[in-house]
């Protein structure tokens, strides 16, 4: 089964490497703590879409403990969105949210960056686009940018079951016992 905690940790490391920010300046959104000071990024995992039909496969291992010889697995691809938001005191220049996200968008195709996601079987197939939406925070402008991404990951789950080894058919009319496939 997929571990979103593992994927989130990998995505966090990926975002830190892309942006060059310290790890403490990249946080997952919608938590109750206080926002970091200065430049920071928030990450949000959003929409999850199953792609096509999930496949159901089974595998038999007669050496497994009794009752657990057959493993039935369901697996399928999932598309999910990742929203990266940048918040910067600066609204122009290379430190502004737009410039930081622009750098991240370009750097994300570097092999070392792709490897960070491949390590957890995540495929970054859509780099999306960047919106730049500076807003007034309290008494001054704050640089704000949003970068939408889409990714693929495969999810699966399985359960153990057993198989029918023997079938007995009883002929009630005669009382004879017929054993099939014994």
């Amino acid at each position, binding site marked *: 089964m997929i571990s979103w905690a593992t994927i*989130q940790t990998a995505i966090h490391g990926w975002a830190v490497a892309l942006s060059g920010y310290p790890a403490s300046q990249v*946080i*997952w959104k919608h938590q109750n*703590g*206080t926002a*970091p000071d200065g430049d920071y990024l928030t990450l949000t995992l959003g929409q999850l879409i199953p792609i096509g039909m999930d496949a159901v496969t089974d595998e038999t291992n007669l050496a497994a403990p009794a009752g657990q010889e057959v493993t039935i697995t369901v697996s399928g691809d999932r598309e999910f969105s990742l929203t990266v938001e940048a918040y910067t005191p600066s609204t122009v220049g290379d430190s502004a949210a737009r410039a930081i996200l622009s750098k991240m968008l370009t750097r994300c195709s570097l092999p070392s960056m792709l490897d960070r996601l491949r390590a957890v079987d995540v495929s970054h197939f859509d780099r999306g686009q960047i919106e730049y939406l500076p807003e007034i925070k309290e008494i001054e402008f704050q640089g704000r940018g949003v970068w939408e991404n889409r990714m693929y990951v495969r999810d699966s789950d399985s359960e153990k079951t057993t198989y029918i080894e023997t079938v007995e058919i009883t002929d009630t009319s005669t009382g004879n016992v017929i054993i099939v496939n014994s």
Partner: protein
Amino acid sequence: MPYTDSITSLANATITVTRRGESPRVAGVDQAPVTSTFSLIAVVQPATGEDLQRLPEGRIESKVFAVWVLQELRAAGPPGILADLITWRNEVYEVEHVEPFIGFFNKDHWKVIMRGKP
């Protein structure tokens, strides 16, 4: 009754304050805060309409009380500062707003607006 003793003399409650220190995040995920607790005597009264207006939109509800204490409490503030939690009559409230009265009548005191924590 001298004014300096008014909170002590009129206290109608002993509240328990839980102070929370934000722990460093791990991979961008909040960690459980480090907490410490202490007790205070306090005057707890229903919040007035004026008190309610001090709360941000969306955080106004009926379970709001005004509390007077002789020690500073903390509302959520800069990074790393989480609001104090107040336990009163077996219910937990969060400090939403603090008004310091420093040096008033030679007795520092604080008026705190606390809101029921969901």
